[in-house]
């Protein structure tokens, strides 16, 4: 059994080693898998901030993942084809800079989370699940109908954006970029969880009345957490677009929201970085089962059911002692 700190260190180093092995063995596919794990792990950890610690089951987190992705892709798309967007005060020409596109993705998903959160957090329980789902479905159908940016077919950005003078098309370089993002996000989330704010948030999950009587406003606390979570998920979405050089309405679909929840529960929602382990297990299972059998989704379903029924603390519960 491990302490939580050791557990975090081991999985983070494990992912890094995995991609290094891929590099040494000249198996770029391993590196891509590791990159995918890192990106989905970021999104999962962000979702876990509100789900595991705030008790808010968002069944629409794909909307932030997709909005971040679309914003980054649209900016890259315009930079490529030279067509500018008329924004009344100035013309926006798009950008091929990763940092700038991430910034846009985070800002947009943050404001979107503020809008969605301010309405959704008035409800609770199953109604919260459903209203977040409803918002995600609306963005999904909006992206399907927006033919200027590909509609149902999605939008290709062909090349990866630039970051300083790094060759981002090399798998290992891009992996290290994403890995750095994971570390930064990890530190931020860890700091948030252990701050006073984090304790109040956990308090809201346990007993909202008590928080009110302490003079705190649960609505503001939950909304703040929701916005932080949405912004980080947006960043993950932008990274995912860079990885695939493609974005489509699928990234906004309810299946994607469901998969993000799967990562959280699979890894264990009681731990901040549980979802990272969830991402490792999920992606490797997908990969492994996909090679063994054509009907891998069936077995994935069986395994997930067994985990829910018999390992309620998720896979991380097997390694961490309380």
């Amino acid at each position, binding site marked *: 059994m491990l302490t939580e700190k050791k557990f975090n260190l081991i999985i983070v180093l494990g992912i890094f080693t995995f991609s290094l092995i891929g590099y040494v063995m000249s198996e770029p596919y391993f590196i891509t898998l590791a990159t995918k794990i890192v990106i989905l792990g970021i999104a999962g950890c962000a979702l876990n901030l509100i*789900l595991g610690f705030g008790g808010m*089951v968002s*069944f629409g987190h794909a909307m932030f993942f997709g909005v971040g992705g679309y914003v980054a892709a649209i900016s890259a798309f315009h930079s490529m084809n030279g067509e500018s967007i008329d924004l009344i005060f100035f013309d926006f020409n798009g950008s091929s800079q990763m940092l700038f596109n991430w910034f846009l993705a985070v800002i947009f998903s943050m404001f979107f989370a503020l809008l969605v959160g301010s*309405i959704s957090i*008035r*409800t609770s*329980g*199953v*109604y919260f*699940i*459903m*209203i977040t*789902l*409803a*918002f995600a*479905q*609306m963005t999904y*159908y*909006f992206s*399907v*109908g*927006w*033919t200027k940016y590909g*509609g149902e077919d999605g939008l290709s950005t062909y090349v990866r954006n630039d970051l300083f003078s790094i060759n981002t098309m090399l798998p290992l370089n891009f992996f290290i970029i994403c890995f750095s993002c994971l570390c930064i996000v990890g530190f931020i989330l860890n700091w948030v969880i252990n701050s006073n704010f984090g304790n109040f948030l956990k308090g809201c999950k346990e007993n909202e009345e008590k928080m009110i009587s302490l003079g705190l406003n649960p609505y503001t606390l939950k909304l703040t957490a929701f916005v932080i979570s949405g912004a980080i998920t947006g960043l993950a979405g932008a990274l995912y677009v860079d990885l695939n050089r493609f974005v489509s309405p699928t990234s906004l679909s*309810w299946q994607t929201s*469901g998969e993000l*929840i*799967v990562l959280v*529960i*699979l890894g264990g*929602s009681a731990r901040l970085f549980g979802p990272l382990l969830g991402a490792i297990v999920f992606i490797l299972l997908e990969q492994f089962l996909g090679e063994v059998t054509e*009907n*891998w*989704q*069936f077995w*994935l*379903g*069986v*395994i*997930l*059911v067994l985990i*829910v*029924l018999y390992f*309620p603390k998720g896979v991380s519960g097997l390694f961490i002692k309380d």
Partner: protein
Amino acid sequence: MSLQLFIEQLLNGIQFGFMLFLMSAGLTLIFGVMGLINLAHGSFFMIGAFSASFVAGLTGNFILAILASLIFPALIGIMVEFAIIRKLYERDHLDQVLATFALILLFSEATRYIFGAFPLFLDIPNILQGNILLPGEIVYSKYRLIIIIIGLFIAVGLYFLINRTLLGIQIKAGQNDRQMIRVLGINISRLYTIVFAMGAALAGLAGALIGAIQSVEVGMGEPVLILAFVVIVIGGIGSIKGALIGALLIGVLDTMARLFLPIFFELIMETSQALSLGSSLASMSAYLLMTLVLIFRPTGLFGKK
């Protein structure tokens, strides 16, 4: 636009509404009585359609096919309830969402394995093909009219079941106070199994009825499932009356939005853009309505406070 077209579309909306009602009735009962969020409800829709199409292919008899669409999903529902679902009632919503999400993967893949990846077809029987002339010179599809009538029968039947039978009283008691009905000596796990099987059968029936209009394929249940969730949230979770009103509301709204929004946008933009924008806004309309309802009534129209 002629009045006839308008009324025809209105009837289409009502037909769609009754189909949604068949899905939502089970969903809302399962949530109301057992407190379970069942994402796998859409799988029973699919299983119903596949069993109907299989039996129709075997026997050529539509009535038998419809019976199969009730019986097979109910049987599979009983098995799944017994093996898995039962363990989830006491868990929180999160575990239920994950486990039933996993069940979707399991059911979809199993169906693909058994029936192959290609869509199947279910033919409308000869006597129900073609149109019927309704009062007011309205020409309407016989089959869709039958769906409306079946939906009406089920709605009335459920009303009597809930309000006039012992089982109904137990269900209502279960919604109000789960502990109490256990104390009263009612076999609660049998009641749960019955409610789950009934929900599965209704979803299966909806799948078979719709399967004859569209094609029968893997994944057909999920879009309907999501709309059914919208319906029960609008109606108030646990309320059959709410499910009926919500379903008709969503059915008519969705159909009308699909008809009118493209026409409206054609006035201000070119046709192809108007069509795609109109249809995507129409798809959003149900969710928009749900959001509005929840803003003003956070527990739905007929939900308990």
